[in-house]
């Protein structure tokens, strides 16, 4: 029988005593897109890590095309035709894209890499599938969507028949998502089997043939996508009782005094301008959304505001204090906190314990001896506020992404800030956590906090922000107030146009 077949898979993690999967059966046919959905921590990633050889199951069998297999490494899974594409694929900095794609399976003659042959092979394959990738591009210059495509390409180079994509669309702009889906549909037509993990239910139902739902490490069921709608799927994921209704639209808060005022902010990276004179104002009680595609300056504005990079010129006044060029310490002392998109890289020390990670703000100010008991109590309180169970002694890296996001948020809010900088707060959160987060952000604004929200997710921005600015090429390309638009669809289109600009050709 063709296809990949998982039977009775169990996975137990002795390090934290968690049973991540129990008795899961899952199959993938050639020529189908099989969506895998579930809340954070449902076990989707764990299941795909097992199928791709990253981790070994505690029990259960894996068979591929009728042969029972045991994978002790991703290389072994790849030999059986199975490959995983991570959300943020890793690339080798300094490599050209083609070098990265053939890494580990370079065509060689007498031990010497056949460079032109390898390069041509990558180019041919890229053209054949319409990947639209330049084989000579440096890997560090690739956008995350291109890195994902490059990862798919490198699996295809190794004749992978089954592709597992772990939440690829969570980090993609709507247009990029469409392109990725076109690509997946082409691959499916050519007989590849594809697993797609996603939190975005409507888009998932649109491209998937079958949908498997996991809940808390257990299998809820596998259904044909054609016979499901989003509501039904939602109730499979959360159970009927937890099927939450959308919040009513926000009411305008009272406008408070100015909290953040940015004037003429300009930054350069090795001569190239990243921001070219940005002006922004934000009052207390307001949520200001900032939208932009990659390279628009969104990330630079985020880092400059949080004090992580130094601007060349311009001023940032936060809650009455000038903070530009004075680092993250000045930003925090003025009353700001920051919830970055890059959780593992910036917001946490993965190798330190949860207790250390949660104690960082009080201890960055304190002097003299510590009181371990006091820190412990404090960390416990933050964990409780985040509704996270577990041992604070464990390292941060042993917790899942969604859990860490809740912990980071609770830690930052425990600082009792007046200004909150959010970047992609919804990344990696499931629908229920996302809804709760949205409510939380609105409540914070109502309580008089000023909130700057950076996001590439237009739905998130539109549903939360009082006003939205768009960035393009380091300039503010549009300013939108929610009140000016009665129709969100209209607003969405206007923002999209301002983000991308008219000079960009939308279809290929």
């Amino acid at each position, binding site marked *: 029988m063709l296809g990949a077949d998982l039977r009775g898979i169990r996975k137990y993690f002795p390090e934290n005593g968690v049973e991540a999967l129990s008795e899961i059966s899952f199959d993938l046919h050639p020529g189908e897109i099989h969506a895998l959905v579930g809340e954070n921590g449902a076990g989707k990633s764990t299941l795909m890590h097992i199928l791709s050889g990253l981790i070994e199951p505690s029990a259960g069998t894996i068979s591929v095309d009728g042969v029972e297999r045991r994978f002790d490494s991703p290389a072994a899974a790849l030999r059986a035709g199975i490959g995983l594409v991570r959300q943020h694929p890793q690339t080798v900095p300094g490599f050209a894209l083609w070098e990265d794609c053939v890494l580990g399976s370079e065509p060689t003659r007498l031990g010497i890499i056949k460079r032109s042959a390898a390069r041509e092979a990558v180019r041919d394959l890229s053209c054949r599938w319409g990947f639209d990738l330049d084989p000579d591009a440096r890997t560090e210059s690739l956008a995350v969507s291109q890195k994902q495509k490059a990862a798919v390409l490198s699996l295809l180079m190794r004749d992978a028949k089954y592709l597992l994509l772990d939440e690829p669309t969570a980090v993609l702009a709507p247009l990029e998502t469409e392109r990725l889906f076109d690509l997946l549909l082409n691959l499916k037509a050519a007989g590849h089997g594809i697993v797609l993990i996603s939190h975005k239910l409507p888009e998932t139902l649109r491209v998937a043939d079958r949908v498997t739902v996991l809940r808390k490490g257990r299998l809820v069921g596998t259904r044909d996508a054609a016979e499901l709608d989003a509501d039904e799927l939602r109730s499979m994921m959360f159970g009927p009782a937890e099927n939450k209704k959308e919040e009513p639209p926000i009411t305008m808060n009272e406008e408070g005094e100015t909290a953040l005022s940015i004037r003429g902010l300009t930054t350069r990276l090795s001569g190239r301008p990243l921001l070219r004179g940005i002006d922004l104002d934000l009052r207390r009680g307001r949520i200001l959304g900032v939208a932009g595609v990659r390279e628009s300056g969104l990330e630079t504005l985020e880092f400059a505001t949080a004090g992580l990079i130094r601007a060349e010129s311009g001023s940032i006044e936060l809650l009455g204090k000038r903070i530009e060029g004075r*680092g993250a310490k000045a930003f925090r002392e003025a009353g700001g906190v920051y919830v970055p998109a890059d959780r593992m890289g910036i917001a946490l020390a993965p190798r330190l314990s949860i207790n250390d990670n949660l104690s960082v703000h009080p201890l*960055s100010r304190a002097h003299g001896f510590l009181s371990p008991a006091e820190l412990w109590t404090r960390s416990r309180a933050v964990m409780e506020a985040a509704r996270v169970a577990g041992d604070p002694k464990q390292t941060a890296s042993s917790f899942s992404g969604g859990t860490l996001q809740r912990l980071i948020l609770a830690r930052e809010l425990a600082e009792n800030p007046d200004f909150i900088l959010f970047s992609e707060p919804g990344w990696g959160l499931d629908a229920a956590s996302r809804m709760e987060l949205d409510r939380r952000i609105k409540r914070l604004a109502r309580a008089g906090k000023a909130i700057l929200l950076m996001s590439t997710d237009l739905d998130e921005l539109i549903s939360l922000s009082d006003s939205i600015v768009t960035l393009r090429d380091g300039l503010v390309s549009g300013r939108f107030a929610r009140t000016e638009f009665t129709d969100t669809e209209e607003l969405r289109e206007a923002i999209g146009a301002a983000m991308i600009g008219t000079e960009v050709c939308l279809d290929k």
Partner: protein
Amino acid sequence: MTSERKKTKSFAAFGSVVALGAAAVAAAVLVAATASDPLDALRAFFLTPLGSRWFLGNTLDSAALLTVAALGIVIAFRAGTFNLGGEGQIYAGGLAASVVLLSYPNANGTIVLCAAALAGALTGGILAGTSGLLKARFGVDELISSFLVSSAVGPIADYLISGPLRDSANNLLATARFAPDRLLPRILEPSTLSISVVFALILIAAVALVLDRTALGFRIRVAGSSPKFAAFAGIDPTKYWTPAFSLSGALHGLAGFFAVAGTYGLCHRGFSGGIGWGAIAVALIGRNSPIALIPAALAYAWLETGSETAMLSSELSFETASLVQAAVFLLVTARFSGWNLSRVRAFLRRNR
């Protein structure tokens, strides 16, 4: 479930013990294979270091010197830097201390000893501090710069000891002996063990307290383990490089002072040979925890003394003794390059 979890933890803790055990076995094989009377050589290797006041005292003394220098490695490592210039810092520190100990003939011995300790610490601290400063200011790799500075210090100190500072009254390539009131009191005569071992213990306690129990130690740990996270929280990681590196050098210089004023009673050419490298091995065995340096240094010193006694008692060659140290180094560093339980398990399962 809990038993499996415990197993994982204890295995991690025993990693160092396994590495040391393997080194001891490798040493035993080397000794037995090269000695004319293997049994006698083995006895000399493993038991003699513990068997007499002389050897026991020397082993403890050697462990004390290693510990002080290893504390320096730990401090630098916690701040996210690596001090590879320990040898030169010990040598220069010891030499500076010796110059002080040979001067001011009419001054009070205890005061001169304190001044010599200070001179040793300052010299080591300045040597290392330069590398820390270069890293913080210009991004110069501290691993390379500290090693290069240390390599340059060696020949200069060699020249000073065999030239201007040499005592022409005897045939050694060494300074004159220090006056009796300028030596650290010995504990276990006739061995070289002095009260430097007490200072070593005090230093361990102090460093452990600062690193693990103060806000400053916490910030150093955060800055060292994840510079980006530190910057996010408003802790400037570069701020800690120069102080941590200077402190690391100061401890090495202090180890040099303990060696000349406690162990040798004079400063001879190349006295620091091996202490700096041994300290790195000890810090690795002790997994960069100040308290764990005590057993790590004892075990390392035991193997080191063992190879010396075996060399003396059964015409074992000097090269064999060096091989033993190399084996310890190799096994300890091998453990640090990702040799862990899950891979061992996977290997066992494949071959079952």
